């Protein structure tokens, strides 16, 4: 049965039918058999709804709580039916009768059900609710005692009779206490919650008017009947499943309902004293004093717990602030350490650069002397061996220079020495210098130069950029391929393109191409040596000149690097 989708519309239909039935009840002749039957039918209607709703919407202990409600309501209906049977049959209702026992037994059942429901919200969560409920209950008990119980206490001589008579209003106290707890334990109110509270309140109002005045007004039946119908609606509404869930808020809000109820409870003692004195009746000073003290004590407890909660909040806030300050200090220290690390790294890179350069100076220097026939003529083989040593020394030097450059980039001090630079002229030099390498691989290296390729920048850095792009193109182009360098201007920018017919770069790697130490898988797979610094440096140089670099490529067909730099005629924004 559980798992069938509850239909909220069913509740509306149920309520409409219930209201119609109550209307019909008042159309029927007063105290007639049909009206008596109608009363029992409407009560049964509510009870059936409670049972159906509990079965459909709830399980476990939550369902059993609603079975308890149903049991209580059944006791009411059975008791009432017996009373009515006496009234219709003999015209006289004996007191006390079995109906009184059955009727009264309903209250403990309802009390138990509401109490279990509230207790299931969790002890910690309902602490404040219990104090508030205590205050309201004390107020109610005091009023009930002075205005209802004390005046009826002397009606019957017989102790048992008197006790049973007093038991009715006393039973209401039994309901008020957990009802107040239920109301105060939750601020978030679902439809089912409101319907249940309404059912209990209508029951209590009807009871109180009846006991207080000792008269069974006909319209009171509407309240009792409505109570049954509301009870059933509360069980039928799908939100009943959420009723048992613990309240979300740790401390309930001080809303209007709570304030009104608490205010009324606190006002009971003084109002009662004034009213009774004004009417010249017994003011019950001991009861007023006793309950006054109880209410005051509860209010004090409540205030104390509020102050304690406030203090705790305050302390937590102070702790949080101290924590925040401490972490701020830690952050500053960490920054300091990072700066120190950065400085150490720069120092280290500088040191490595220096210590690598010193032996390289000897290697290159002495090789140069040998190659210049300083120590006698060399044969071809010796000369080619020395060329290998020289080339590798150069490679090592390039690596050292690149590392040093990247370290400078990272510390952010790439200062440009700005001048007007003819990019075409630089390209000619670069191509001329790279020609031997291209020839060695049988690569056709071509240069196309247009006019007006003048930029503002540092010649040395732009040469480095060209050299990086051209040597990459040669490196990644197989023997017999082509590399062309194009320099020109298109009015908006000076454009440099380096086009090769090389191995290409997979699309998914092009984004990462300019990252430090990144190497394309195509390069790694072919064991083409490199450090993954060249393009990172090229990107940084282009960036420092206020330009941009882009790449288009097809794996196996070739790659084109395109650099756009602001022309010298434009006031270029060059990052210093």
């Amino acid at each position, binding site marked *: 049965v559980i798992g069938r989708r509850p239909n909220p519309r069913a509740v509306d239909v149920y309520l409409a039918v219930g209201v119609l039935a109550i209307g019909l009840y008042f159309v029927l002749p007063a105290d007639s058999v049909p009206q008596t039957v109608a009363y029992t039918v409407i009560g049964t209607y509510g009870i059936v709804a409670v049972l159906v709703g509990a079965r459909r919407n709830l399980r476990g202990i939550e369902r059993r709580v609603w079975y308890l409600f149903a049991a209580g309501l059944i006791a009411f209906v059975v008791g009432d039916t017996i009373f009515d049977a006496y009234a219709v049959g003999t015209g006289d209702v004996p007191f006390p009768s079995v109906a009184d026992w059955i009727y009264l037994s309903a209250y403990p059942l309802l009390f138990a059900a509401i109490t279990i429901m509230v207790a299931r919200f969790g002890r910690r969560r309902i602490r404040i609710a219990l104090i508030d409920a205590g205050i309201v209950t004390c107020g109610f008990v005091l009023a009930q005692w002075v205005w209802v119980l004390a005046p009826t206490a002397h009606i019957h001589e017989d102790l048992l009779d008197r006790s049973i008579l007093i038991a009715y209003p006393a039973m209401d106290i039994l309901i008020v206490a957990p009802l107040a707890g239920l109301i105060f334990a939750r601020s978030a109110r679902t439809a089912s919650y409101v319907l249940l509270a309404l059912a209990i309140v209508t029951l209590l109002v009807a009871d109180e008017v009846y006991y207080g005045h000792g008269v069974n007004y006909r319209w009171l039946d509407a309240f009792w009947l409505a109570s049954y119908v509301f009870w059933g609606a509360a069980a039928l509404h799908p939100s009943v499943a959420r009723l048992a869930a613990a309240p979300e808020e740790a401390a309930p809000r001080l809303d209007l309902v709570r304030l009104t109820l608490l205010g009324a409870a606190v006002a009971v003692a003084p109002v009662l004293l004034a009213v009774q004195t004004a009417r010249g009746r017994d003011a019950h000073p001991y009861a007023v004093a006793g309950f006054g003290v109880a209410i005051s004590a509860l209010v004090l407890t409540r205030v104390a717990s509020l102050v304690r909660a406030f203090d705790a909040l305050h302390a937590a806030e102070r702790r949080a602030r101290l924590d925040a300050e401490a972490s701020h200090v830690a952050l500053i220290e960490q920054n300091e350490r990072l700066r120190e690390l950065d400085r150490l790294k720069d120092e280290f890179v*500088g040191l490595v*650069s*220096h*210590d690598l*350069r*010193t032996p*390289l*100076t*000897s*290697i*290159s*220097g*002495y090789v*140069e*002397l040998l190659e*210049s026939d*300083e120590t006698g003529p060399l044969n071809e083989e010796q000369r080619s061996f020395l060329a290998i040593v020289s080339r590798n*020394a150069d490679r090592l*030097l390039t690596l050292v220079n690149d590392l*040093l450059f990247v370290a*400078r980039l990272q510390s952010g001090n790439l*200062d440009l020495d700005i001048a007007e630079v003819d990019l075409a002229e630089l390209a000619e030099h670069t191509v001329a210098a790279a020609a031997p390498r291209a020839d060695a691989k049988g690569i056709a290296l071509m240069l196309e130069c247009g006019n007006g390729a003048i930029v503002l920048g540092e010649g040395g850095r732009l040469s480095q950029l060209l050299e990086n792009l051209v040597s990459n193109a040669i490196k990644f182009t197989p023997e017999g391929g082509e590399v062309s360098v194009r320099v020109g201007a298109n009015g908006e920018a000076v454009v440099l393109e380096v086009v090769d017919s090389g191995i290409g770069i997979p699309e998914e790697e092009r984004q990462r191409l300019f990252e430090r130490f990144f190497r394309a898988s195509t390069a790694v797979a072919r064991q083409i040596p490199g450090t993954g610094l060249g393009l990172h440096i090229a990107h940084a140089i282009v960036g420092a000149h206020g330009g941009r670099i882009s790449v288009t490529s097809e794996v196996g067909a070739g790659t084109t690097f395109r650099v756009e730099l602001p022309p010298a005629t434009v006031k270029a924004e060059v990052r210093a």
Partner: protein
Amino acid sequence: MTAPILIADDEDDILGLLRLHLTRFGYEVVAAHDGEEALRLALERRPVLAILDVSMPKLDGLEVTRRLRQDGNVPVILLSALVQPSDVERGLEAGARAYLRKPFTGAELREQIEAALA
């Protein structure tokens, strides 16, 4: 006897390389292994030019350059594996005519020497 060129470097290999180059260019050479020796030889031998390494024991190349510039007008070429722009700046501030980065080629060395002696 013509006035020599003073060379100073704590690395014998570099010192030897400089000596070979300079001899090939036709200059007299006097060599020092540290800054103090360089200063002493500068006083004794009155060189026409000093080619000094920057990182040397006892007295570094920058300090030697400063003192040489104070006492006379011997031109100084600094030679160093410290190649950051800030290093070059410091060298020129100390009074060096030129700052040659290691590793260097014979042609670069010759060019700087001829420029300094011109």
